[in-house]
């Protein structure tokens, strides 16, 4: 294999990691609070706001129901407004982030669901404010579940980022399609798939390790 080819593979790997890192980070920063909001604003919860809860829930569902490839092309104007261009890894990171936010939010909500209502009651009996309950009870107690959710998100982002080629996003999936499929180069195809597999394995193991560390049950 030529050194140019190796450079190409290396670059594509870094591109994928970049897109996953940026979208993973931002979607966590937005999705985590959104997930907490979805949970605490439920009826009979510590900050019960049934109407707000319904609105957030519908927005989240809409976000989750749009197929990624359609989301990617339909928000191109928004992407251009945000990062100045509609092609490249920065442009691809925008739809990845948008798609991952509701995903993270629902997984965080599911993790919070696992907490025994008794713990919240005990904290209320101690005179904890809703904010204190979120910070000192909900987040720490759901940490293991949230870690599991974030691991699932990162792995999903790796596979979604392979579609980023459709908007000239670059990365391993794009390389695999353009060189492996369109130019009939099964070696390149195989290499990109192997790298993706290794990446997924790596993130999954890291996630599992972090979950084990935070789980005290």
């Amino acid at each position: 294999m030529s050194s140019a080819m190796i450079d190409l593979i290396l670059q594509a790997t870094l591109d994928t990691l970049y897109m996953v890192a940026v979208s993973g980070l931002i979607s966590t920063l937005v999705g985590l609070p959104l997930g907490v909001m979805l949970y605490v604003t439920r009826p009979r919860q510590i900050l019960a706001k049934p109407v707000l809860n319904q609105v957030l829930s519908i927005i989240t569902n809409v976000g989750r129901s749009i197929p990624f490839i359609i989301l990617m092309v339909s928000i191109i104007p928004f992407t251009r407004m945000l990062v100045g261009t509609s092609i490249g890894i920065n442009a691809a990171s925008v739809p990845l982030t948008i798609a991952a936010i509701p995903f993270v939010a629902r997984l965080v909500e599911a993790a919070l669901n696992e907490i025994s209502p008794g713990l919240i009651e005990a904290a209320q009996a101690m005179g904890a404010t809703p904010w204190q309950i979120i910070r000192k009870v909900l987040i720490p107690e759901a940490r293991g579940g949230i870690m599991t959710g974030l691991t699932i998100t990162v792995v999903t982002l790796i596979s979604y980022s392979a579609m980023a080629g459709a908007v000239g996003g670059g990365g391993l999936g794009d390389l695999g399609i353009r060189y492996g499929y369109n130019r009939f180069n099964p070696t390149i195809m195989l290499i990109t798939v192997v790298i993706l597999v290794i990446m997924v394995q790596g993130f999954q193991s890291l996630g599992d390790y972090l979950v084990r560390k935070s789980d005290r049950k």
Partner: protein
Amino acid sequence: MIELSNISKTYFSNNKGRGTNAVHALKNATLTVPKGTIHGVIGLSGAGKSTLIRCVNLLERPTSGSVTVDGQEMTQLSNAALNRARHRIGMIFQHFNLLTTRTVFDNVALPLELMGQKRHTVRDRVIPLLEMVGLADKANQYPAQLSGGQKQRVAIARALASKPQVLLCDEATSALDPQTTSSILELLRDINHQLGITILLITHEMEVVKSICHRVSLISDGELVEDAEVGDFFTAPRTQLGREFLNDFLQLTPPKELIERLLDASGENTHPVVRLTFSGDAVSTPLISRLARECGVDVSILQAKVESIQERTLGLMIAELLGSPTQTQQAMHYLESHQLQVEVLGHVQRND
């Protein structure tokens, strides 16, 4: 210290167009717990015990009525003032409700953190508490590594961290085995004794009431139907439900073969079977032999039990009275005149 007056709690559930369904969990409950006493509320599950105890610290807000703790009307407080008031009310639960991701030390420290206390102040408070509940050596362990009894001890230490004047116990021993239950009850009694903390507990176990309560209320279907000194409640419950609890507790029911032979009405050749309850002086009086001498009635004892409840002795007996109808009638009057409670369970056919 705790005063509930006329509190009611009604839950409304929407029945999709067919109007609302109202569930009355509490009906005009009134309860006073004086400072430094241990008050028990006993009832069957679903009777409203949990709702009642949760109304004290407003985990449940009563639909109507007033809740006063330490002279403060709780239902009128702002959120911030309510949280401050809750610092003065500790609570422990059936399932302990410890945070799984915090060590024993950090669990006990939580209420102090919530109050914004400094790290070293927290330490100075937590260590003696752990010593008091006998878990100083477990400070760095996690709840999952502890037994049920140890978890409840941690929960007690946590509830006491903010130096409350009131401790609410929600079925605190219901998830524990009998030995552990008695050690936890002993700890609660010590806390009441040494710190003068007022304790309100709810339970379905008479054993709990018997061993630590001063007064007891009986709750049935959202209503407080009986309120008595524990000694009185165990010797002479005033309600049918109270008697059922007592009989269940004493496990004094007639043998099955006898129940099958019992007739409701007396006949020509029947003997009455009676349950006798006696307390105080009656326990030490040789009434049975006097009965034989003075009324000419023989007594065949089927079951008997003597219990001591907080320095009072309670005797129970199920017996068959052998004699003519007039004699047995006379015998029952004789017993009643000596402060015994006589309850006729039925009549059995004579064997001779």
